[in-house]
C-alpha cells in the first residue's frame, strides 16, 4: 500500500480497505465496472489495485468521450476544415487523436487552421472576433459537457452570430451501459457510477440497472476514499442480496440532477436514432444531434459531410479493451506499435483512456522495476 500514506485520510483509507477485504471474503470473484474514464485514471494513479483484494476485479468502462469516437467522425470534421474559410476548434484532448490522415495537430502542422479551446464559449468568442471566417466547434463529451455546448448554441442564436457552428459528437451514457450489459461476453456484478455525468442527469436514470438487471450501482466521487467507499457500498448491497442505486458523491451529485442543464440540452438537442461507438458498434438513441430549430448552427446540416466510415486496424483491439473484455496489455500492439507518444488508438491518447492509464502507471512502473533489477 505504498501510495496510501500520501493521502490525507490515510488511516480511513486503510480501515476502508480492511472493510472491503472483510466484506469480499475469499470464496468468490467480483467484477465491477467503473463507467467513467475519470475513475479509470484515478484508480491507476492511486494504485487502488494494490489496495484491493485480488478477488475484486475492476473493469474499465466506456466513459471516455475521446475513446469512443469512431475515426470516421474525426475524418469528417477535419474534411470540413479543409476549407480555408473554416477555423476548426476543439478541446485539447482531441488534438492528438489519430484520424485516417493524421490527428488535428498534424493537420495544423500541414496548414489547417486548428485551434485549441477550453470551453465552447471560447469557440463562440473566436467566431465573434473573426467575423470573416467560420468557426466550427468539434464538440465531444457525455452529459457533463453537452449542456455547455447547448447554452453556447443558444447564445449564438440570441446574439445573432452566424459564422459559428457545432459538429456535434455528444453521446449519452445510459445506452452505452445498456449495450455493455447486453453484450454476451460480458459478465459484471455491479457498477461504479460516473460522478460528473450524474451531477447533470442525477441518479434516477440508473434505476433500471438495479431493478431490471439486479445489479448494484453506486455513483462515486474521484478521490481514493470515494472509490473505496463506493466499493464498500456495493459489497454491502451484494451481501444483503440487494440491488439499488446509491449515491456516494452526495456532496456534488443531487439525486434529481441539474434541471437547468437538462433544460438547455432538451432545448437544443434531440436523440439521434443511432450512432456509431468505437468498439461498441451502432447503438440506438445513444447520441445527440442539434434540433432543426437550430439548424443554422449545426455543421452537419449546414455543410456537406462526407460521412466517412473507417474500420480500425485489424491488430488494434480497442473495441475489446473498451468493452472490458481484454486488458490493455492483452492488445498485441500495446507498448509496441502503440504508446502514448505514438498512439494508434484513442484509448492511448486521453489520460482517461485505459491503455494510456495502464501504460503510464503500471507499465512504466514494471519497466522501472525490471531495469533496477537488471542494474
Amino acid at each position, binding site marked *: 500500500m505504498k501510495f496510501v500514506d*500520501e*493521502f*490525507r485520510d490515510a488511516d480511513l483509507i486503510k480501515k476502508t480497505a480492511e472493510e472491503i477485504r472483510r466484506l469480499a471474503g475469499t470464496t468468490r470473484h467480483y467484477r465491477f465496472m467503473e463507467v*467513467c*474514464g*475519470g475513475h479509470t*485514471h*484515478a484508480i491507476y*494513479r*492511486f494504485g487502488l489495485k494494490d489496495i484491493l483484494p485480488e478477488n475484486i476485479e475492476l473493469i474499465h468502462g466506456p466513459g*471516455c*468521450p*475521446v475513446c469512443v469516437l469512431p475515426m470516421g467522425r474525426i475524418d469528417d470534421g477535419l474534411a470540413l476544415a479543409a476549407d480555408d474559410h473554416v477555423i476548426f476548434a476543439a*478541446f*485539447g*484532448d482531441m488534438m492528438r487523436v489519430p484520424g485516417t490522415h493524421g490527428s488535428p495537430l498534424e493537420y495544423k502542422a500541414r496548414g489547417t487552421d486548428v485551434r*485549441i*479551446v*477550453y*470551453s*465552447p*464559449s*471560447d469557440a463562440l*468568442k473566436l467566431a465573434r472576433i473573426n467575423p470573416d471566417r467560420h468557426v466550427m466547434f468539434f464538440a*465531444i*463529451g457525455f452529459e*457533463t*459537457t453537452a*449542456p*455547455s455546448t447547448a*447554452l453556447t448554441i443558444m447564445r449564438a442564436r440570441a446574439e445573432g452570430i452566424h459564422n459559428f457552428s457545432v459538429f456535434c459528437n455528444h453521446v449519452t451514457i445510459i445506452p452505452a451501459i445498456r449495450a455493455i450489459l447486453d453484450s454476451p461476453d460480458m459478465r459484471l456484478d455491479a457498477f461504479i457510477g460516473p460522478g*460528473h455525468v450524474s*451531477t*447533470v442527469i442525477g441518479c434516477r436514470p440508473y434505476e433500471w440497472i438495479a431493478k431490471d438487471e439486479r445489479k448494484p450501482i453506486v455513483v462515486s466521487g*474521484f*478521490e481514493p476514499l470515494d472509490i473505496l467507499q463506493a466499493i464498500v457500498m456495493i459489497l454491502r448491497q451484494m451481501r444483503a442480496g440487494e440491488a439499488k442505486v446509491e449515491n456516494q458523491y452526495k*456532496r*456534488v*451529485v*443531487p439525486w434529481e440532477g*441539474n*434541471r*437547468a*442543464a437538462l433544460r*438547455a440540452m432538451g432545448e437544443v438537442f434531440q436523440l439521434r436514432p443511432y450512432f456509431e461507438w468505437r468498439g461498441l458498434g451502432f447503438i440506438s438513441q445513444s447520441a445527440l444531434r442539434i434540433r432543426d430549430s437550430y439548424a443554422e448552427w449545426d455543421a452537419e446540416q449546414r455543410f456537406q459531410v462526407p460521412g466517412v466510415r473507417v474500420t480500425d486496424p485489424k491488430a488494434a483491439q480497442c473495441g475489446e479493451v473498451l468493452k472490458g473484455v481484454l486488458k490493455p496489455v492483452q492488445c498485441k500492439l500495446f507498448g509496441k506499435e502503440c504508446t502514448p507518444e505514438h498512439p494508434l488508438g484513442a484509448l492511448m491518447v486521453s*489520460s*482517461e483512456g485505459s491503455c494510456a492509464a495502464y501504460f503510464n502507471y503500471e507499465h512504466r512502473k514494471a519497466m522501472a522495476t525490471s531495469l533496477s533489477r537488471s542494474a
Partner: protein
Amino acid sequence: MCLAIPGKIVNFAEDGRLATVEVVGVRRKVDLGLLQEDMPKLNDWVLIHVGFAMSKISEADALEQMRTLALLGESEQAMQEVRGYGLEEE
C-alpha cells in the same frame, strides 16, 4: 476536458450570466448558465467544467478537489485550462 476545477466566486458581472472566480490566485470569468436554478452567492465555491460553473460545493470539498487534481498530476493542466478560458474581456 473531463476535469472539474474548483473556483471561488469573487465577483458577478452585471447581467448575472458570468462571474469572476478565483482558482489558486488566478482570476477568470465563468458562465453561470447551468446554475440558474440554484445561483451561487459571493464567496461560494463552484466546480467548473469547460468554462461553465457546474455545481456548488463546500470550501472543504473544493480544497480536497484541488488536492485530488494535484495527486492525479493534473493541476498543471487544470491551471492551463483556467488561464485559457478566453471569457475575461467580455
